[in-house]
């Protein structure tokens, strides 16, 4: 049997929940950041242990292995320097042509490295926490990438931490482009992405789309958040949907969000 204290407690909780859920969005976001600020020492502790374990593993790596890695990295640096010189020449030519045609200048990306310090505790959202905040110049809606491609965008920012919504989350829909056919579409959460976070759906491709499995998908630059040309993934399979009004495809993301540990915020 329920007793009087049970009823009082239930009433209190219901009123509290209704009150909090009906807070204005900015107030709720600020409250959320204030509460999550309590976890700063624990996040700091985790970062400390991560960096200590990296340093320890470096300290115990045999000298021979380190020398081999160093030689390999030197070779890679030399190759990349050659590629960079070619790229610079192409960029210069590209800038000249754009100026001649009267196109707007494109600013180069500024990147800032961040470490992933937490993931969404709920299984029904895709988000993670990184160790950059307003003190590092991060603001909402900045794109987040890693070496393989697009990861997501900044959703909310506190002083020294930010929440990133990942590709595949309902809050992160991206306008994309098929590189080969130049057809536009929108990336939305996948119908089968609960276990495999690298699968998302690509919708609203033209009805008579020529897209084929294996085609590469990049950001289209439409929408104003993600710059054009960031690799997103490759097309897995293609099908007609919506009474054949448009074509949809499944896309295998270039980045596995569940395994990403370090990212770059694009300014």
């Amino acid at each position, binding site marked *: 049997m329920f007793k009087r204290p049970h009823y009082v407690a239930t009433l*209190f*909780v219901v009123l509290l929940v209704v009150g*909090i859920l009906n807070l204005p969005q900015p107030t709720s976001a600020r409250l959320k950041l204030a509460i999550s600020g309590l*976890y700063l020492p624990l996040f700091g502790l985790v970062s400390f242990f991560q960096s200590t374990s990296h340093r320890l593993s470096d300290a115990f790596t045999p000298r021979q292995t380190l020398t081999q890695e160093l030689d390999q990295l030197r070779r890679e640096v030399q190759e990349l320097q050659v590629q960079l010189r070619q790229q610079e020449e192409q960029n210069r030519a590209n800038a000249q042509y754009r100026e001649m045609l009267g196109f707007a200048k494109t600013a180069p990306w500024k990147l800032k490295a961040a470490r992933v310090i937490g993931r*969404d505790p709920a299984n029904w959202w*895709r988000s993670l926490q990184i160790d950059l905040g307003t003190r590092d110049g991060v603001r909402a809606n900045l794109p987040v990438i890693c070496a393989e491609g697009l990861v997501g965008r900044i*959703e909310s920012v506190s002083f020294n931490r930010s*929440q990133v919504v990942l590709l595949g989350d309902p809050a992160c829909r991206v306008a994309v482009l098929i590189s080969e056919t130049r057809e536009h579409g929108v990336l939305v959460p996948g119908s089968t992405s*609960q276990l495999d976070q690298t699968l998302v759906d690509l919708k609203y491709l033209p009805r008579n789309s020529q897209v084929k499995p294996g085609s590469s998908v990049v950001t289209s630059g439409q929408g104003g958040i993600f710059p054009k040309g960031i690799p997103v993934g490759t097309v897995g399979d293609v099908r007609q949907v919506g009474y054949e009004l448009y074509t949809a495809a499944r896309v295998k993301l270039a980045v596995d969000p569940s395994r990403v*540990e370090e990212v770059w915020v694009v300014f």
Partner: protein
Amino acid sequence: MNFLNPILTPVAILLAAFVAAFLGAAVNPLSTWLRAQIDFLPAVMVFAALTAGITTVTVTACLGGLWQDSLSANPLGISILPLFLVGLIVHRSHELILRDQPFAQFAVGLGASAFAPFLTVLLLYTMGRQPIVGWGSLWQWLVVSLIGAVATPIIFWAMGGLTASLTHPVFHESKHRPDRSIRRGRL
């Protein structure tokens, strides 16, 4: 196990809820391997409901829910009600549950860990949100429920040990009564 310390038990429960919410969000290889984030808060709620009063249960549900939502993309406050209902239902039947038996703790933990996320998703749909739910979610639900069930007896054991180490041991009175002892005399 002496769980009934009136000050230490609520503090220990709140501390456990705080750490449980953080562990759910922490990067760990187990979650990556199982493809499911693990939630220990329902297990902490079971412990609170079986060892403390309704006030502690209410405060743990409110703070635990807020802590968890602050680290998640959930709307702030959505996890409070499921956690509180778990605590309320278990607390209502706490006199019938064999709380010292690990199997009973496992069974109650299983039910609580299955019920809390289910109700949270239901609330999200009620609010018009679109959480990512599909057939794969059944696997995640199973994993979360089983790990919550396994965690419940561990939490009981750990909290019992913590409480015992920070309080005076319980003094058990001897059953011996000198006035009732049989004195052997000469026959």
